[in-house]
């Protein structure tokens, strides 16, 4: 399974459609404070199924939709898509290219799609079953987690362990 691209539109500070390609093994993301780097990480966590706004540094899901700036109005929809090559047939599907999409509307409706076909969150979770890919996985590492692991806050070591075992 290889990541090929991430598309973000109306999600947090990404007002316009933005695409990032993952053709290489090590991709760096750089830029000044507050420019939107961690928002890219949040976009990936969200599209693979994160349900708690708190894990995305937000109070409620509506805070994920672009809320406007000096020159722009707020968006009505946050939309993120992640595309993979299903090499080694790791994903629970026979498609060779898989594109998962998640949308959230200001009226509170949300939608999931696999290869543009509407589906449920459960289908996305099944897709990633046993691959180590999950929104709270040991493979998405932020600085805040370091203190949690060292002091074992909320039994976090055990929780991470169970993701891998």
């Amino acid at each position, binding site marked *: *399974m*290889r*990541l090929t691209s991430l598309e973000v539109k109306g999600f*947090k*500070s*990404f*007002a*316009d459609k*933005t*695409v*990032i390609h*993952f*053709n*290489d*093994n*090590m*991709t*760096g*993301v*750089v*830029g*000044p404070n*507050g*420019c*939107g*780097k*961690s928002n*890219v*990480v949040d976009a*990936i966590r969200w599209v693979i199924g994160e349900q708690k706004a708190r894990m995305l540094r937000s109070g409620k899901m509506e805070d994920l939709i672009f809320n*406007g*700036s*000096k*020159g*722009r109005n707020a968006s009505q929809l946050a939309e993120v898509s992640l595309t*993979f090559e299903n090499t080694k047939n*790791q994903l629970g599907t026979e498609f060779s290219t898989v594109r998962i999409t998640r949308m959230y509307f200001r009226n509170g409706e949300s939608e999931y799609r696999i290869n543009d076909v509407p589906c449920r969150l459960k289908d996305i979770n099944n897709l990633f079953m046993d*691959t*180590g890919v999950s929104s709270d*996985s*040991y*493979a*998405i*590492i*932020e*600085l805040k*987690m*370091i*203190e949690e*692991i*060292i*002091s074992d806050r909320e*039994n976090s*070591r*055990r929780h*991470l*362990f169970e*993701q*891998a*075992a």
Partner: protein
Amino acid sequence: ASEKFLDAFTRVKANFITVFQKLFNEGDQCDLYLENPDDVLESKIEVVAKPKGKKPSTITQLSGGEKTLTAIALLFSLYLLKPAPFCILDEVDAPLDDNNVGKFNNMIREFSNNSQFIIVTHNKATMASVDVIYGVTMAEPGVSRLVPVDFRSLE
């Protein structure tokens, strides 16, 4: 269920010792153990880390950088048990000195043969060790855009 867990735990422990000694020094003492081995499925997981010549009674006495390396060693030992297809690191290299950033980047380079890594960083040495760089800018205030970056003109 408890056999499966114990088997996984033993393998992670072995990984932890290997990774810890690569990030710290050969021969540094470290260990993972179950606080309550009688209750395998509920027990807390304890971590012991004793970098070169030190005797910290618990890992909370370690320095900021040592805590970061110890936590990373644990996360990577879980990764080695079940390598996820991609890993994301968000400014995890910030507390590390130049020497440890080097060791850290070398290890990621090794892992990147199996998995893709997405690395958010401000550290110039880390920027130099990745394959491709995307810059995120807010040329229009409040609106993020992505631009492919030529390494030489950074920040």
